[in-house]
């Protein structure tokens, strides 16, 4: 069984690590899609589990590479060159301030100018670089809240589509078995904090 774990929020790391190992133990293949590698740095996946870092996929496009070089890598070199000897502390602080106040806001501002919704871009990356070119996944395991919107987009199927959709589960252990699960009637969106009654914060 080919199983894709969507773990973009990295909030249930232990469950993902253990369940992917279980997929391998069951003779299947597990791919874990993470938003960035850093939150997972202390986790140890089974060697046969493939971990795909979405942030690296995003950085691999030609426009992103140029943008990264101009905004981050190039200025970073300049600050490091300046930061020798007595200027070290000043250059380090100035470099940090530059990234916070200039490079990152410009990076964010450039995203819409690429003409694409970030969510659409993310979905296209996943389709092209994770889903394409490999056997279809039998099961999507949606592992945290942040993974729900991309999972719903990936599973939204155009009318008339006849290819089998993967099954969906929130835990590998609870995926059940058998073929694709028929859709239930549409249900209303769940309430967000706006409609839930209580507003207190801890």
């Amino acid at each position: 069984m080919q199983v894709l774990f969507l773990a973009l929020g990295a909030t249930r790391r232990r469950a993902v690590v253990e369940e992917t190992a279980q997929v391998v133990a069951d003779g299947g293949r597990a791919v874990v899609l993470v938003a960035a590698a850093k939150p997972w740095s202390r986790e140890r996946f089974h060697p046969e589990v493939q971990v795909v870092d979405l942030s690296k996929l995003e950085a691999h496009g030609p426009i992103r590479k140029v943008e990264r070089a101009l905004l981050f890598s190039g200025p970073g070199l300049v600050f490091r060159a300046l930061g020798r000897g007595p200027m070290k502390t000043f250059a380090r602080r100035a470099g940090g301030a530059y990234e916070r106040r200039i490079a990152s806001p410009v990076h964010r501002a450039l995203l819409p100018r690429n003409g694409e919704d970030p969510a659409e871009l993310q979905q296209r990356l996943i389709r092209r670089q994770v889903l394409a070119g490999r056997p279809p996944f039998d099961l999507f395991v949606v592992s945290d809240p942040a993974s729900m919107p991309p999972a719903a987009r990936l599973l939204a199927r155009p009318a008339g589509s006849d290819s089998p959709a993967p099954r969906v589960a929130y835990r590998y252990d609870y995926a059940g078995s058998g073929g694709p699960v028929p859709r239930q009637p549409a249900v209303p969106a769940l309430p967000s904090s706006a409609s839930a009654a209580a507003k207190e914060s801890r």
Partner: protein
Amino acid sequence: MAATPVKDVAIVTPWYPTRDMPFRGAFVQAMVGATAPGCDRVTVYHGDAWVAALSDRDDELVGRAHAELLGLATARTPTVGGAQLRYVPVPIPRGRWHAEIAHRHAATLGAALGGKPIDAPVVHAHVGLPGGWAAIRNARPDARIFVTEHATFLDQVLDTPEARAMYDEVLHRADGFFAVGEAVRAPLLEAFPHHADRITFIANPIDFDVSRPEPVTDLRRWLYVGGLIPRKGVDLLLEAFATCRAEDPTLTLTLVGAGELAGKLSERAAELGVAEAVTQTGALPPDEALRLMREHDLLVHNSRFETFGVTVIEAAAAGMPVLVTRCGGPEETLAGVEESAGELIDVEDTPDVIVAGYRRLRSRFPQQVDLSLARRELAARYSYPSVAQAHHRIWFADAPAAGTSDALSVPAQRS
């Protein structure tokens, strides 16, 4: 045409063991394992809180997407006792209070059910908020609803007027409301005196089926099972162990559980010079913890507060003596067999009370400790059959007898 199940029960719970949280809600799983065999159909709805840092915008997107996904992720999987489990994650932005959490559990369960009510004539929820609230919001109008409260943090739950009003509504709608001990019942009576006659007791079931191969002969291998958190007093336990081990170098201590104190306990064990005698296993599945109980000599439980104290009864079931604090639950659950089961000590912020309790217990062990008697008495109160009968009696008081069900004559409720 298939016959409609006669003894059909839905369990609604926010706590149920999972791979990453193997202890959480083990008592709910035990209740399902005890009661399901006497029913025609039992379905467990586990609403698992998935807490994450979410902005209002993200929260909205997650809610919309989750509603779509719930229609796809509909699998039910077998769980204990022949029951079926439907797993329903409940996304919750970090920092929300109990009232909102309960609203979200109710709404998410409703979405998972496709907007239809829970298809069962009996609904038993665990924990007033959020479980009871999710149950009363999603049960059929004609369903009989029961709630068992276990929470050790009722003061926090009832801290806001809205949560208190919601809890009051749960109490009003429920056909039966149970506390697992006086430590739970007392704050409920204080908060809702008008429901005093409706809040009674029910016990958590404990598995007495497996006994240890060899009886305990010496109190050398200490065991602790539970969270490694301040409330459990496990830091004082380690200090006491070091003192006792200075007198008897053959003593060992196994800490089963996980928590914020894990690292500090390792460091402190090294400072005390007992690192080689202390083993931390991390969190283990309940079955594995029970196996360890049969391989150790003494359960030491120094908790500051327990509503029931499942591990204490589990230890007695495993044939091991207990050294346990009078922290709410244990003095009730062990009532009448305290000296047979082991030694009770007061809750104090010093390891000396544990050391003194251990010395007293060791001095009268085994001659003045009757573990067989304690085990027999406790089995009559808390074994699976006893607690199952109590549940079946309240659930199916008016139902016709089903082929697989036992006669329901022995209530396990305590007075």
